[in-house]
C-alpha cells in the first residue's frame, strides 16, 4: 500500500489510484504506415524491469488526472512523480 504523491492533489492512499502500465510509449502518429512488426512493437511490447521503472498512473478516485511515476520495482520506492508531457526528472 503505497502513499502516492499525486502531482495535482498531493499525498494520497494507493487505493485511490490505478496503475496504467509502462510510461513514455507514444502512440504512433501514422499507424497505417507501420509494418505489422512496428505496430506490434507499440501494441504489445512492454518492459518488466526489476529496478527503476517508468510507469503511468491515474488518480482514478480523485482528480482523474494521469501522471507518470518512477518506481523501483525491487523495493517499491517511488523515486519521482511528474506530469504528463514532462521529461522524467531521473534517468
Amino acid at each position, binding site marked *: 500500500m503505497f502513499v502516492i504523491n499525486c502531482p495535482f492533489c498531493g499525498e494520497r*492512499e494507493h487505493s485511490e489510484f490505478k496503475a496504467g502500465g509502462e510510461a513514455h510509449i507514444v502512440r504512433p502518429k501514422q499507424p*497505417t504506415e507501420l509494418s*505489422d512488426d512496428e505496430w*506490434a512493437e507499440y501494441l504489445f511490447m512492454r518492459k518488466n524491469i526489476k529496478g527503476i521503472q517508468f510507469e503511468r498512473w*491515474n488518480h482514478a478516485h480523485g482528480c482523474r488526472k494521469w501522471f507518470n511515476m518512477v518506481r523501483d520495482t525491487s*523495493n*517499491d520506492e517511488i523515486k519521482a512523480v511528474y506530469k*504528463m508531457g514532462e521529461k522524467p526528472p531521473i534517468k
Partner: protein
Amino acid sequence: MTKNLRVKTGKAIDETYRILFKFNGKTYYGFKGDTLSSALLANDVHLVGRSFKYHRPRGIMTAGSEEPNAIVQLHDKSSRTEPNVRATEVEIYDGLEASSQNCWPNVKFDIGGINNFLSPLLPAGFYYKTFMWPASFWKKYEYLIRKSAGLGKSPTEPDPDVYEHKYIHCDVLVIGSGISGIMAAKTAAKSGFKTLLVDEKPNLGGSTIYQNSDYFKINNQNSSSWLEKEINEIKKLKNLEIRIRTSVAAYHGYNFLLARENLTDHLPVEQRKDKTRHKLLKIRAKKVISATGSIERPMIFDNNDRPGILLSSAIKRYVDFFGVACGEKNILFTNNDSAYETAITLIQKGINIEAIVDNREEVDSKLLYEVEKNNIKIFKGYTVTDTFGYKRINKISIKQLSKDGQKVVGSKINLSCDCLGVSGGWTPAVHLFTQSGGKLKFREDDQVFIPSIYPSDQLSIGSCNGDFTLDEILINTPRSLKEFLNIKNTEYENLEVISSANKSKRNIWLLPSDKVLGKTKSFVDYQNDATAKDIKLALREGFRSIEHVKRYTTTGMGTDQGKLGNMHALGIISETAGAKMGELGTTTFRPPYTPLTFGTIVGRNVGEYFDIFRKTPIHNWHEKNKAEFENVGQWKRAWYYPKENENMHQAVQRESKAARESAGILDASTLGKIDIQGTDASEFLNRVYTNAWSKLAIGKCRYGLMLNEDGMVYDDGVTTRLGENRYIMTTTTGGAANVMGKLEDYLQTEWPELDVYLTSVTDHFATVSVCGPNSKKIVSEVIPDLDFSDESFPHMSFKNAKIGKINCRVMRISFTGEHSYEINIQSNYGKSVWEKCIEAGKEYNITPYGTETMHLLRAEKGFIIVGQDTDATMTPIDLQMDWIVSKKKYDFIGKRSLYRSDTIREDRKQLVGLLTEDPNEVLEEGAQIVADVNKSPIEMLGHITSSYYSPNLKKSIALGVVKGGKNMMGQKLIIPMEKKNINVTVADPVFLDKENKRLNA
C-alpha cells in the same frame, strides 16, 4: 481430586474474584487475570491436545502467542465457536467452555494415537509418496485423508458478532510494550510525536514487569518497580494512545500496518451483546518502532514434546505473573543463563527444583552461584537424551556431552520430575521487520538473525534487535531513539544498571543422543510433528532450498508458523548441508503474525454491505411491481416482472410479445452517459469510434462501435449531437466507468491538443424507453406539445422537450428493432415520467419488461451485446459489422490492428445466427459448436453466445461464434450435448425485420 498449584502473589491475579470455566466438559476454577493455560496449570492440567500427525499427547509449552500445542476449540457447537485458539492467550471469564482438538474420542484416549506407533511408516512426504498411485484411487484416498486432516471445527452458523475497520494515522507507532517499547513510547510522545503504543497482551510491561530480583536493578530499584513507574507516567501523556490486546498482524510497505484489537473476547458471552468484537486497525505511521521482543528457543532432543515440558521462561511467567507452579518436581535444562532466572524465581517462591542440566561446562555466572548456594544440583556439560511418561513427563535421562558437543559420553543418569523447563537461548521476533521488506543479518556469536537493512522509516529496539540483557537494552535503546527521532536527549541517560546474567550460550541445534537418529523423535515443529529425522531425510532425498524443505516436511507450516522451531530447522539444515546460516537465509515470514478471524478481515462488509449496489430512480416502482432483479455491474436491474405464478420463461415470452405487438417499457437509466463538449468534440469522436462523425447533423443520433488499440470490440452505444460542439454518448451499463477512464486517458496523454471536456452524467438522468407499434401514441400523450410525426422526428434523431415545466431529451432510437423512444429526464423526475407512460399506455397494454426480454428482443434483431457476444477477441469484421468501419478515416483507435496478419485470417471465429432443426429446441449458451462428431478428437469450431425461444418468430434462435462462420451460410453444424447431438443450420444473425420496416413504421 486435582492438585492446587497456586503460589501466592501472582502479579496479574485477583484472588478475590473466582471464575468457573469448563475444559473438555469438566468444571474448573481460576481467578480473574488468568489465561486458560495458567488456570489449567493451576489445576495441574498439562495434557491439553494431541499432535497433528502422530496424535501424541501434548501439553502447554509457552505462555504467549508462540504456543504450538495448546490450541483449543472455544464454545464448541455454538455460533461463537472458534477453532485453533491459543490457550495461552485466552483470558478466562465466567462460562468459558474450551475443548481439545484433533483427538477422538477424547484427549486422554485418542484412537489416532496409533499413528505414533506406526510412525516409522509415516516419514516426511509420506502422503506425497503413498497416494500417488493408482491415480484413479485418489478420490477414495482424498476422502479419508480429508476426514483425518485439519485441526478444529469451523462454525456452521452465522457469526453473531460485529467487527469494525478503523484507520489510524500517527507519527510514531511503537509495537510492543516491554521495557524498550515503554521507553520508546515515552520518549516519542514527550518529544512531540503523536504516538500509538500497541501490545498483544492485556497488560503493559512485557517480561520485565515481573522481574523482581536483586540481580536486575535500575537506579537501585527492582527493574519491575522502575518499569511500573514509567508505565504509570506514560498513561498520563496526552500525545500517547495505548491499545492493549492489539496484535499487529501485518507490516506492509510505506509503514502501512494491520493490527487486530480484541475488544470482547475476554468478557463473559452475555456481556458481549451490542459491542464490537474485533477492530481491524489500518495504521499508517510516519515512523515505526518495533519492540516485539524475542521468543525463547526450545531444545531438540529425543521425546522433547511430552506434556510437562515447557519453555523455562514460560515457567517463570506462570509463577511470577499468574502465581502458578507448573510442577512440584522441576528440572531445568539450559544452554544459557535464562534458566537460572527461572530457578531464582522458583527458589524465591519455595517451589522445588530437582536439578539443573546445563550444556555449558564452566560458567562464571552470578545467577548460577546463587542457585548453587541453595544446594541445587547442577549437571554442567550434560544434555538430556530422553524423556519418559506418556501423558505427563515423569523421568528424564541425561548424559555428559563430549568436548565438541557432537556425542554423549559416560553413563546415563535418570532423574525423576513432573516438569521440565528448557531454554535454548532467544530468537529475536523479527517477523514484522522482514514482512516490511527488511533484510536480516546473522550474528555468529549467539547464532541469531537480527535486523540489518531497514526498508522504510523504522527502528528495531530491545531483544527483537538482539539486545537480550538489561544493560544492553538500557544503553542501546536511548542511543538508537535519539538518532531515529532526531532528538538531543532522552530521560534514560546515565542510568545505573545491575544486570547479572552471563551472556554465554552453548548452541547445539540438534543435541546428540545415545540412540541412532532414526530411532529418535526429536521434534522441531511441534504442531505439525516434523522431527529432526524428517529434515535430514528431506536433505538426503535431495532437497536443498529451505523453502522446499519446509514444504516437504511441513516444518513451520502450522497455525503457529513455527515460531519456536524454525531456527532449529535452519540450524540442522545448515549443519547437515555444510552451508552457513547467514547464506542459507530464513524462510519467508508472511502475514498474519497470529491468525485473524474472517470476521476481522471483512469487518462491516457483510450481508447487504458486502458490495455497493446502485439503484435507478425508478427502482421502487420495479420493487412494488414484483420485479425480479439481476446484478449488472453494481447496478440492480429489473430482470423480468412475473405475473401471478409465471416463471422467468413465461414472463419473458409474454413481455416480448407485448413489446412487438403493442407497447413495452424499459428502465434504461443504467446506461452510461458521458457529456462531451469542446470545439474538437467531433474530431474526438472520429478518433474513438470506428465510424465517421463529422457529418452528423445537430439533432441526429448515431450508433458507434469503440475498439481497443488491438482492434477488438470494447464498447458500443448511441451518441447524439446536441449542438455544434456538444454530444451525449451512451455506453454499456457495465462498461461506463472504463469507457470514461479510457477516453480521459487518450485525451490527457495522446491528444492533449484537443479541446474536449468529458463529464460523466450517468446518475444525472433517468432514461425511460418506450417501444412497440403503439409507442408513438403513448409518448405523444405524455409530451403533447412535441411533434412526433415521422417527417419531423424520424428514427435516429433527437428533440428537446418539456414535460410540464421540466426539460427532457427525447431520442428516437431502438435496441429492440421496434419503433421506440427514449425519454431522458433529470433523475428525480424519472419515476413520475415512468408512471405517466404507464398511465398513458394502459389502453395499449403497455408492458414493463426487464433485461431478459431486452436481450431476447435485440437477439431477434441480431444486435450484439458487448461482453456477451464478444469477448475481447472479436473485431467488428468478426461480428460481420464491416459496415460500421470507416474506410475513409485516416485513423481511429484500433484501426491499424484490423489488418494485422492475425486479424485478417479467414478462419477467425465469426458471429453467425444459428437455427435448430427442431424449432422448439433451445440451445444452451456456452455450448460447443462442432462439424464432425465422428472424428476424434472432435474439433471445436466455436460456441453459442446468445440463445432464446422467440415467441414472435415462434422458433428457437441463437447467436454464436464459429470459425470461418461468415462463409458457412446454410451449412449444417452440430451442438454436442451430454445426452444428444443437436443439429443446427448457420443463418443470418438478423432473424427479424432485416429491412427495418418496424423501426421506421
